[in-house]
C-alpha cells in the first residue's frame, strides 16, 4: 500500500511536470496565442481612395502576433538569439522580456495611382506584405 501510494504520488507529480513542460505540452505548443501570421487587409476601397488609386482595391498586409514560448523552433522560425532570450526570460521573467513576434519575410506590392489630373504613377513598395512570422 505504501509502495502504491508513493507510486501514485510520483505519478501525480510527474503528471504536473508534464502539464507544465513546454516541450511536450500540446496545449502550449499549439496554443492559439503562439506567434503566428494574422490576417490584416488594408482596403483602399474602404478608405474611399478609389478616386485616385486605380489598382489594387487593397492588399493582404497581414501582421505578426502571439507569444514566443518554447519550443520556438517547432513552427516559428526563431532566431538563435530568440532561443537564448527565452531561456533568460524563464530565469528572470520580471527582468527580461520574451522575444518579439515579428515578420521574418516580407514582399512588395505595386500601387497604381493618379499623381494629378493627368499623370499616373505605378510604384513598387518593398517590404509591405508579411509573408512569414518568427521570434526575434
Amino acid at each position, binding site marked *: 500500500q505504501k509502495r502504491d501510494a508513493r507510486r501514485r504520488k510520483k505519478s501525480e507529480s510527474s503528471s504536473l511536470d508534464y502539464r507544465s513542460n513546454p516541450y511536450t505540452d500540446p496545449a502550449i505548443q499549439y496554443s*492559439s*496565442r503562439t506567434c503566428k501570421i*494574422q*490576417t490584416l*487587409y*488594408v*482596403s483602399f*476601397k*474602404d*478608405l474611399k*481612395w*478609389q*478616386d*485616385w488609386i*486605380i*489598382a489594387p482595391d487593397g492588399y493582404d498586409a497581414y501582421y505578426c*502576433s502571439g507569444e514566443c514560448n518554447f519550443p520556438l523552433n517547432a513552427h516559428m522560425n526563431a532566431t538563435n538569439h530568440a532561443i537564448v532570450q527565452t531561456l533568460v526570460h524563464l530565469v528572470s521573467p520580471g527582468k527580461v522580456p520574451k522575444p518579439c513576434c515579428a515578420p521574418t519575410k516580407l*514582399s*512588395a*506590392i*505595386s*500601387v*497604381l*495611382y*493618379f*499623381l*494629378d*489630373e*493627368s*499623370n*499616373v*504613377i*505605378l*510604384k*513598387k*513598395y*518593398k517590404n*509591405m506584405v508579411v509573408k512569414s512570422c518568427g521570434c526575434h
Partner: protein
Amino acid sequence: DGQRLSGLYVDNGLDQTVVHRVVTQREKREVEHEILNLLGLPDRPRNTGGKVPQVKRSAPKFLLDIYKNTLGEDEEKPVTLHTQTSGEFDLTGQDLRAIDQSDVIMSFAAHNHHVAGVRHERGKRLWFDVSEVPPGEHIIGAELRLYQSSDIKNHRNRGSYMITAYRVLRTEDGERELQYVDSVNTTTGHEGWLTLNVSEPLQHWVNNPDGNRGLYLSVHPADRSVHEMRPEDIGIVGSRGDADRQPFMVGFFKSSGIREAKVR
C-alpha cells in the same frame, strides 16, 4: 462590410476578430494619413478629390496594362514569367526589361504648350510636365508613345514616312534650335502605337527644369526629308484626339533606396 476602419479590432484567441472599440473620425483620419505617409505622399494627390478618375485616357490605360499583364499577384516572380500577350500597347522585350528593373513607372500626358516666339510649323510640339519626378530617382529610360490610325482622310498621302522627335533647345527671338532625339519609320495604313526613345530629353528636363521647352515632332516622306507634313496627315493622333489614343510619355525609374520622408 465597408466599416473596417471604423473600429479597432482584436483577436479573441479563437481565431476570430472582434471589435475592441469604435475609433473617432480624428483617429480614422490619422490612420489614413499614416498609410498615405507609408505611400510617400504628404496628402491625397492634388486635383483628384471628388472627381471621377479618367482611366480611359491613354496614359493610365498603358500603366494599367502593365499592372495587369506583367506584375500579377505574386511580385516575387520575374516579369517574363508573368507576361501574357499584352493588351493593345504591344510591350517589347526592351519594355519588359525596363519594367522588371523599375521601382517607379510614371506617365506624362502631352500638353499643347505654347511658347511665345515659336513659329507654327507643320510639325507638332509636345510638352510634358516632369516636375513631379521624385528627386534622386535614377532614370532607366523613357519613351514617347504615339498612336497611328490607319484611317486617313487624304489617300494621296499613302506611302512610307519617317517621324522624328527633336528636343527644343532655345526659343528666344523667334529662333528655334532643335536637337535630334530619335526617329521611327512607318507606313500609312499602320494601326497601333509607335514608340520613340526619349530618355535623353527626360534626363535633361529633370536636371534643368527651366530648359523644358518640350519636343518637336517632324513627319516627312521616307525619301524626301525636306517635305515636312502634319502628323495628322498620316494618321498620328494628337492631344485633341480620342482620349485613349492621345500621345504620352512614360518614364522608368530605379529608386535611390532612400525612404521618402515627406513632411506633412
